C-alpha cells in the first residue's frame, strides 16, 4: 500500500502538529493549497489551522469562518476551554450553513480537494469540514444540441448541484431522492442518482448503484465514461442510455419511473432505462398540441427510415433491380447516370463520405471558418461534381435528403448511431442487392430486438407489445388520454378519470 493511502486511512491525532504534518505530506506543496493559522478565540494556547484550495473555496465564506473562530468567542464571552470538541465549536461558534465534523484524514483531504475548508484545532482529535465551495460557474444557457420552439429554455451546466436544483424546482415532491456516489479513484467525481421513490421501477435504483459501484477507473471526465461502463449492450451500435442536457426531459423521465444519473462537471445527464423510441421524441411533442405533436413525431419516424435506408434503397434499385423502378423514373435516373464513370455503389459511398467529411469539418473548425467549409463543400458537391459528370444529380439529392433527415432526429447521439448503421446496409445492398439489403436490415432489427436497457427490452413497447404504452409511442395522444405511466413504473396511474375538457353543460331550466 502506498504511503499516502496508509496515512489517509488513519484518524486525526489530538496534537495539531501531527495532523498538519500528515496533511502536508498528502497534499504536498501545491500553490493552490492554502494553510491559514489562527488562534481560537485569540487564545495563544489553542492554535488552529484552516486548509482550503484557492479558487475552489469562496474567500468570503472563509472570512466568516475565521471571524467566528477568532473573534466571536470573545464577543460571546465564551470560555475557550469549554470548546473542547469539534461538535462544541461547530454548534456554539460557527454560523456557516453547512459544517460537519470528520474524524478521518481521508475525508478531510477529499473535502479540501472538492473546495471545502478543513478546520483543525489543537487538542481536538477531529476536524470540521465547512462547505465553502464557490467557484465561477457558466451561466445557465439553452442547450445548443437540443433546441425547441416552445418550452423552457434552461439547460444543465457543469455544476452538479445546480443541475439537481433544476430538477428539484420542477418536482417539489418530497419523495424525489438524490443519492450520492463518488466514482473515479483520482477524479473522485460526484455522481448523483435521481429518482422518485414511489414511482421508480422496483429494484432499478439498486441495479444502477450496483453497476456504478463496480466501476473501477481513475477518471470520469464526462458522463459518456459512465454510460459506456454501465450500459447493457457495450458492443452494440445502438445507445441504450439516453443522454440529455434538458432539465424538462430529465424531470419527465423521473415522472415516468426512470432513474437519472447526474455526473459532476458535465451538463449531460444520463437516463435509464431507455427505449429506442425515446430518441425520436422531442419535448415539443408534449408542449405543442397533440395534432402537431403526433404529426411531427410521424415526420421524425419518416426521417429515421430515410436516414437509415434511402441510400441503400437507391443503390440496390439502380444497380440490381431496375425492374422495380417505375419506367419513367428509371429513364430519368438512367439519363442522369449516362456519363457517370463510377458504379452507383461507389458513387454512393463517395458522396456519403464527402457529406460526413463536410459535417465533421464544419463541426471542428472555428465557427466562422466552419461556415466557409460548408459553403465550399456544398458548392463543390452540389454543383461542380454534377457538372463535371462525377456524380449523378439523383445521388446528390439522395445524399442531401439523407443528411437532412439525420439532422431531424432529436437525439444527436442516436442520430450518430443511425448514421453508422447506414454504412453496413449500404455495403450489403451494393454488393448483394435486395438480398443483402434485407439480410442486413433484419440482422440490425434482430439485434435491436435482442438488446435490453436496464431490464427493459430496447424496442418496447412495440415489442414486447404493451397496449397502454402505445398512446405515447408512434403518436402522441392528448395529455388527457395519457393517464398511465410506462408499464415498468410502480405507481401507474398518473391522472384522474375524464380529464378531457369540455364546455360547461347548461343545466335544465337555466337557458
Amino acid at each position: 500500500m502506498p504511503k499516502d493511502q496508509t496515512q489517509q486511512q488513519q484518524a486525526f491525532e489530538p496534537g495539531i502538529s501531527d495532523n498538519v504534518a500528515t496533511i502536508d505530506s498528502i497534499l504536498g506543496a501545491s500553490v493552490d493549497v492554502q494553510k491559514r493559522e489562527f488562534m481560537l478565540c485569540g487564545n495563544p494556547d489553542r492554535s488552529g489551522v484552516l486548509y482550503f484550495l484557492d479558487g475552489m473555496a469562496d474567500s468570503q465564506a472563509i472570512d466568516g469562518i475565521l471571524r467566528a473562530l477568532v473573534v466571536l468567542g470573545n464577543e460571546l464571552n465564551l470560555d475557550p476551554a469549554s470548546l473542547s470538541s469539534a461538535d462544541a465549536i461547530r454548534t456554539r461558534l460557527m454560523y456557516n450553513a453547512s459544517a460537519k465534523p470528520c474524524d478521518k484524514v481521508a475525508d478531510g483531504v477529499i473535502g479540501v480537494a472538492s473546495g471545502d475548508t478543513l478546520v483543525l484545532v489543537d487538542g481536538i482529535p477531529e476536524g470540521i469540514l465547512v462547505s465553502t465551495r464557490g467557484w465561477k460557474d457558466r451561466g445557465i444557457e439553452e442547450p445548443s444540441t437540443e433546441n425547441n420552439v416552445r418550452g423552457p429554455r434552461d439547460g444543465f451546466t457543469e455544476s452538479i448541484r445546480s443541475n439537481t436544483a433544476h430538477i428539484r424546482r420542477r418536482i417539489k415532491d418530497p419523495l424525489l431522492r438524490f443519492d450520492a456516489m463518488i466514482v473515479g479513484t483520482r477524479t473522485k467525481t460526484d455522481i448523483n442518482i435521481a429518482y422518485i421513490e414511489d414511482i421508480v421501477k422496483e429494484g432499478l435504483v439498486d441495479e444502477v448503484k450496483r453497476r456504478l459501484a463496480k466501476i473501477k477507473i481513475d477518471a470520469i471526465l464526462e458522463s459518456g465514461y459512465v454510460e459506456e461502463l454501465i450500459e447493457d449492450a457495450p458492443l452494440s451500435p445502438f445507445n441504450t442510455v439516453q443522454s440529455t442536457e434538458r432539465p424538462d426531459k430529465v424531470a419527465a423521465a423521473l415522472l415516468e419511473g426512470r432513474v437519472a444519473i447526474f455526473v459532476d462537471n458535465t451538463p449531460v445527464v444520463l437516463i435509464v432505462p431507455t427505449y429506442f423510441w425515446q430518441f425520436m421524441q422531442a419535448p415539443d411533442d408534449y408542449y405543442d398540441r397533440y395534432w402537431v405533436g403526433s404529426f411531427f413525431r410521424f415526420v421524425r419516424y419518416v426521417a429515421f427510415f430515410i436516414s437509415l435506408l434511402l441510400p441503400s434503397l437507391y443503390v440496390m434499385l439502380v444497380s440490381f433491380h431496375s425492374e422495380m423502378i417505375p419506367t419513367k423514373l428509371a429513364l430519368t435516373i438512367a439519363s442522369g447516370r449516362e456519363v457517370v464513370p463510377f458504379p452507383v455503389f461507389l458513387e454512393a459511398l463517395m458522396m456519403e463520405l464527402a457529406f460526413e467529411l463536410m459535417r465533421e469539418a464544419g463541426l471542428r473548425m472555428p465557427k466562422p471558418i466552419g461556415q466557409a467549409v460548408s459553403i465550399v463543400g456544398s458548392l463543390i458537391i452540389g454543383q461542380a461534381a454534377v457538372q463535371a459528370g462525377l456524380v449523378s444529380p439523383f445521388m446528390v439529392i439522395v445524399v442531401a435528403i439523407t443528411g437532412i433527415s439525420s439532422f431531424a432526429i432529436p437525439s444527436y447521439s442516436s442520430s450518430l448511431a443511425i448514421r453508422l448503421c447506414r454504412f453496413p446496409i449500404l455495403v450489403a445492398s451494393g454488393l448483394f442487392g435486395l438480398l443483402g439489403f434485407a439480410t442486413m436490415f433484419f440482422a440490425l432489427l434482430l439485434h435491436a430486438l435482442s438488446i435490453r436497457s436496464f431490464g427493459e427490452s430496447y424496442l418496447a413497447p412495440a415489442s414486447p407489445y404493451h397496449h397502454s404504452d402505445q398512446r405515447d409511442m408512434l403518436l402522441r395522444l392528448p395529455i388527457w388520454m395519457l393517464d398511465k405511466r410506462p408499464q415498468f413504473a410502480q405507481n401507474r396511474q398518473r391522472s384522474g378519470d375524464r380529464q378531457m375538457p369540455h364546455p360547461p353543460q347548461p343545466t335544465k331550466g337555466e337557458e
Partner: protein
Amino acid sequence: MRRILCLLAALTLLTMCVSCIGQRQINELALVTAVGIENGDKPGTIKLSVQMIRPADARGQTGSPSGGTGQPIYSAQAEGETIFDAIRELGRFVSRRVYWAHNFLIVMNEDYARRGIADMIDFFTRNHELRMNTWVAVTSDSPAELISTITGLEVVPGQAVDNLFKDNRIAGQAPSSNMMNLEEAFLSRSAEPVLARLELVSRGISNKKPLEHGSIKQVELAGAAAFKGEAMVGWVTPAETRGLLFFTERLESGIEVVGCPNNGNKLSLEFRDAKLKIKPSYRNQQAQFQVALHTNADIVESGCETNLAKICQDVERALEDRLKGKIESLLRKARRQYHSDFLKLGDVFRNKYPEEWRKIGDDWNSVFSEAQVDVAVSAKINSVVLKSVGSVK
C-alpha cells in the same frame, strides 16, 4: 477473440470476392419499351423488332452534358429460329445489355398471329424478367414500322401506346389486352383470347406543312383480333368491339350517335352505368344465354330542333337498337364466322353448370356456336337536361 477476428476477416475477404455479382447498372442497360414480332424472311424463322430507349435523349439534359441530341429511341431488328434466338442475335450488335422488364408493348403481325402465338405466350410468361402487365396487340401493318413511329406527344413511342391503352375506356373501341389476360384466356378451356388491334393511320398534321393534312402516320388503337386456340381467326371491327367490351370488361359508358326521329339530324348520347347480365341455362342438351343490357343515358349533343321530352322515348328505342345491333353483330361473328368464344360466355356457363360443363366443355366452341343467345337492351334517358328552350325554333 482470435477466432472471432479470423471469422470477421474471412467474411470481409468473402465480400470482396463477390465482385457485385449480378449487378447491372441502370445506365448500362438498353431498356426495351416495345417489341414487334413477325414471321422472318426465311420460312420458320421469327423476326423481332425491338425499340430501345436512349435515356440521354429521351430525358433531355439531367446532370452533366452527355452529348447527343439525336433520337430518343433506337430500333433494331434481329431474326432467329425462336424468339430467344432472335434476342440473343440482338446481343451481336446492341452495345448494351437488352433489358426487358420495362417493356410496354408486344405487337404481332397478322400473319404471325394467324400462324399461332403459343411460342410468344410461352416465352413472355416463362421469363421472370418480363412483366405480366405488358400490353399485347396485333397489327396488319409492319410491327417494325409501328414500334418505331414517333408520336406527336410522347418522346418514347412505347409509352405513347401505353397511354393509349390506359385511356382506352374513353373511346371504348378496343380491348385492354395485356399478357395477363391473354395467358388467362389462352390457358382456359372456357374462353378464347382476344387482342387489341393497332394500326398505322395517317392522322398527324405536320407543323411545317399544315396543308398536307394527315401526312404523318400515327398509331391508332381500334378494333380487336379474335383467336381460336393459339391462332388468330379474324378481325373484329371497332363497332363490334364496343359490344365485346360489355362482355369482357364491363364497359359502363360510351358515346353513341343516333338519328333524330323527327328530322334527319344527329343526336349524341352518352350511355352511363351500363350493366350487362348474362343468364345461362341448359335445356335439352342445348346451352342458352339470355343477355340483358340495362343502361342510363344522357343527351350530350342534340341536332333535333324540338322539345327533347317529346322524342325522348323514340331516342331511347334508337339507342337500344343501336347497342343491340352491335352486340348481335358481334355474336354473329363469333358464333357463325369464327366459331370462337372470345366473349367468355363459357366462363359464365361453367360457373353456373359445372357438372354439365364436364360433359360439353371439351367441345365448347361448337356448343357455343349452336347455343341460343337472346339479347335484350333497355335504355333510359333520365337526365334533367331535356331542355326545350333553345332547341325549339
